[in-house]
């Protein structure tokens, strides 16, 4: 049985849809249809026209996940966007001219389609995930008086794919049309239910690995690394083309996870692997940092504008322009780096290492099992957090909190890495407490770093003779950040106490021993 999913966007705005998949033995042609009907009916078709259909979604399939599908249709008469909501809701359409993909939702013309898309898509770009041409012939079903009973569309995809006939009765002619449909059904063209074109799902999230505690630890490490390498590779084109900010973000998250596994897995790895690869991966991390930092500021601008009390949003204009300029420069460096031989070598070399580690013989790798490595790593990471936190009191300098944040991240990655073999409930509770602590430390450090960065920006602005108002607005931002930092500092003791309480310790023990 051939696949016969009917693309519903092709009959948008018209009434009832009846479709006919091509019967396997007899092709669905104008002649075959005419032969199936009696003298009471006549059909006529015009010349074929080509409609190009492109399926759109964000890279991480936000529309698909919410049950929507979005299509860009173009034919010689014009172009439109068709948004099909979940359930039986009517599709929304919007005429477009010169649409170029990928595009941010803010680049679309205002209207109901954009209003519906904006909260789903947010900062991610819409891009073409799949496209195809349809040949469409418009026609009519008529009665003996030559009155039109229904409008017809004969829809063909590629030469060898099935064709469909869509039948849209005119108001008041449902009964007559049904008689004709019965004749067609009897001739071997049964109605089909319209099925939405399924966008091919290409999951970019981290997949959960299935593994036993007794399996060699290296198996788990390689599986996780391969997953992260795939994410980096998948996001790379979007980073290079600057499609939206999240490609770089996701790339960096995968890279950071890769590096933390290198650290966590050290005991289970052949000696030289960690030492050989850490510098290269750090280089890659450092290469991507400046653009990401500037992205964070740019994405944060609307929120920062809300912080201003004396100054107005317009006073941030100079800052915004400066950010844009810095970002362009940083992107040039980033792109140069990502197109360099060194980058290519790092990526392919790393892929080779994964292939080597995956295949037999296991080389000089230690015989550690997943369970043993989990016990070591989780225990060690947990103790480091507790010890680091206990050392902090009112007088401790900010650096100590920053380094504690790093330790928290390591623990978090360890919990993530060994999730496949750990007790779900216990892990969830530990992660919840850890998240709170990370949140406090994150706010503390981000505010600290941003204060210093804004200060540097302001200095550059002053040298470039920026308006006084622009500088004063920067001052307000710094003051807001300072208040944020103080607040986070004030919340630290409670968050840490919650994390390090005896119940947390018990759960960590549970995680180490396993189910």
């Amino acid at each position, binding site marked *: 049985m051939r696949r016969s999913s009917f693309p519903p966007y092709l009959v948008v705005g018209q009434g009832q849809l009846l479709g006919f998949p091509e019967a396997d033995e007899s092709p669905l042609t104008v002649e075959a249809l005419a032969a199936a009907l009696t003298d009471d009916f006549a059909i006529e078709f015009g010349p074929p026209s080509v409609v190009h259909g492109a399926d759109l979604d964000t890279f991480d399939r936000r529309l698909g996940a919410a049950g929507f599908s979005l299509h860009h249709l173009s034919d010689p008469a014009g172009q439109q966007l068709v948004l099909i909501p979940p359930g039986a809701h009517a599709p929304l359409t919007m005429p477009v001219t010169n649409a170029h993909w990928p595009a941010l939702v803010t680049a679309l013309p205002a209207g109901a389609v954009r209003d519906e898309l904006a909260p789903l898509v947010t900062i991610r770009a819409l891009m073409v995930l799949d496209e195809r041409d349809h040949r469409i012939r418009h026609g009519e079903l008529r009665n003996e*008086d*030559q*009155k*039109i009973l229904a409008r017809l569309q004969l829809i063909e995809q590629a030469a060898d794919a099935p064709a469909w006939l869509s039948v849209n009765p*005119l*108001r*008041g*002619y449902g009964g007559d049309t049904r008689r004709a449909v019965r004749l067609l059904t009897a001739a071997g063209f049964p109605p089909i239910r319209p099925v939405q074109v399924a966008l091919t799902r290409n999951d970019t999230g981290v997949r959960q690995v299935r593994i036993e505690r007794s399996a060699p630890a290296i198996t788990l490490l390689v599986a996780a690394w391969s997953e992260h390498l795939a994410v980096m590779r998948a996001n790379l084109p979007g980073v290079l083309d600057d499609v939206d900010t999240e490609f770089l973000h996701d790339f960096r998250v995968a890279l950071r996870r890769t590096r933390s596994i290198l650290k966590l897995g050290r005991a289970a790895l052949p000696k030289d692997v960690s030492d050989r690869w850490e510098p290269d991966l750090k280089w890659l991390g450092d290469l991507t940092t400046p653009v990401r930092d500037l992205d964070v500021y740019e994405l944060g601008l609307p929120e920062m504008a809300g912080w201003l009390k004396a100054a107005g949003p317009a006073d941030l204009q100079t800052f915004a322009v400066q950010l844009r300029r810095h970002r362009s420069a940083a992107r040039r460096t980033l792109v140069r780096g990502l197109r360099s031989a060194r980058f290519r070598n790092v990526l392919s070399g790393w892929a080779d290492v994964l292939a080597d580690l995956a295949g037999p013989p296991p080389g000089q790798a230690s015989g550690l099992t997943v369970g043993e490595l989990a016990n070591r790593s989780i225990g060690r990471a947990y103790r480091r957090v507790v010890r680091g936190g206990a050392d902090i009191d009112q007088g401790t300098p900010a650096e100590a909190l920053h380094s504690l944040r790093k330790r928290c991240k390591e623990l978090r990655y360890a919990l993530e890495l060994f999730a496949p073999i750990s007790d779900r409930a216990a892990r969830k509770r530990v992660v919840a407490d850890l998240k709170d602590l990370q949140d406090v430390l994150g706010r503390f450090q981000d505010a600290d770093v941003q204060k210093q960065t804004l200060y540097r920006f302001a200095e550059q602005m002053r040298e470039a003779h920026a308006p006084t108002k622009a500088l004063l607005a920067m001052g307000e931002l710094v003051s807001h950040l300072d208040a944020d930092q103080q607040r986070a500092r004030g919340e630290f003791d409670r968050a840490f106490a919650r994390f390090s309480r005896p119940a947390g310790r018990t759960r960590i023990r549970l995680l180490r021993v396993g189910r």
Partner: protein
Amino acid sequence: MKVLAMYNIKGGVGKTTTAVNLAYLAAREGQRTLLWDLDPQAAATFLFRVRPRVKGGSRALLTRGRPLAAALKETDFEGLDLLPADFSYRNMDLELDDTKKRTRKLGQLISTLSGDYDMVFLDCPPSISLVSENVMRASDLLVVPLIPATLSLRTLDQLTGFVADAGGNQPQVKAFFSMADRRKRLHRQVIATLSADHPHVARTIVPALSIIEQMAERRAPVPAFAPRSRAAICYEQLWAEIRPT
């Protein structure tokens, strides 16, 4: 929603022809348009290739509460629907007489469709009757085709008097010369005397043209099958002049 009735006590003056062509033009400019063929002879229904049949007849619509929407037929032209005539419409006067609001029943029925249409055209049978009284009450505009003849003025005066007497909602009245023949001296004379500055007479004149007679064979509005013909242009002018805003 605006309601326009093609009205004249006489038959054969061009009411149906006007209703079909103007309704087509209204739909073509994007108005959601309905044409109700009230004449049991069903000429407008025929011109749109629709069968002159309404389930349950006029009785079902007038006295049994069958919704008008159930009897609607989409024509071959986008945005233009037809409420067909039925032979039973010849008894409409009697049925209206049986209803509670005997002079306002048609208007009530039409207003049930007010969310669905921008323009409603009524093609009326030639008579003075309870149906015409209902039409007066229901309409915003009476479009009156006149054949230029000695009695044209009298016909128009009778009509405006009738409208004034009808009470309640008073539609505007706009007459125009239909089937005018410049070769006939009488036509030229009547047009000259009547149309000079009569407030109820449109400037546009629709001459007698053979392509208009062809509508019966083509079973379609003139602007649909002969968009560049003089007849099509005349109806476009007439529509531009009288269309309610």
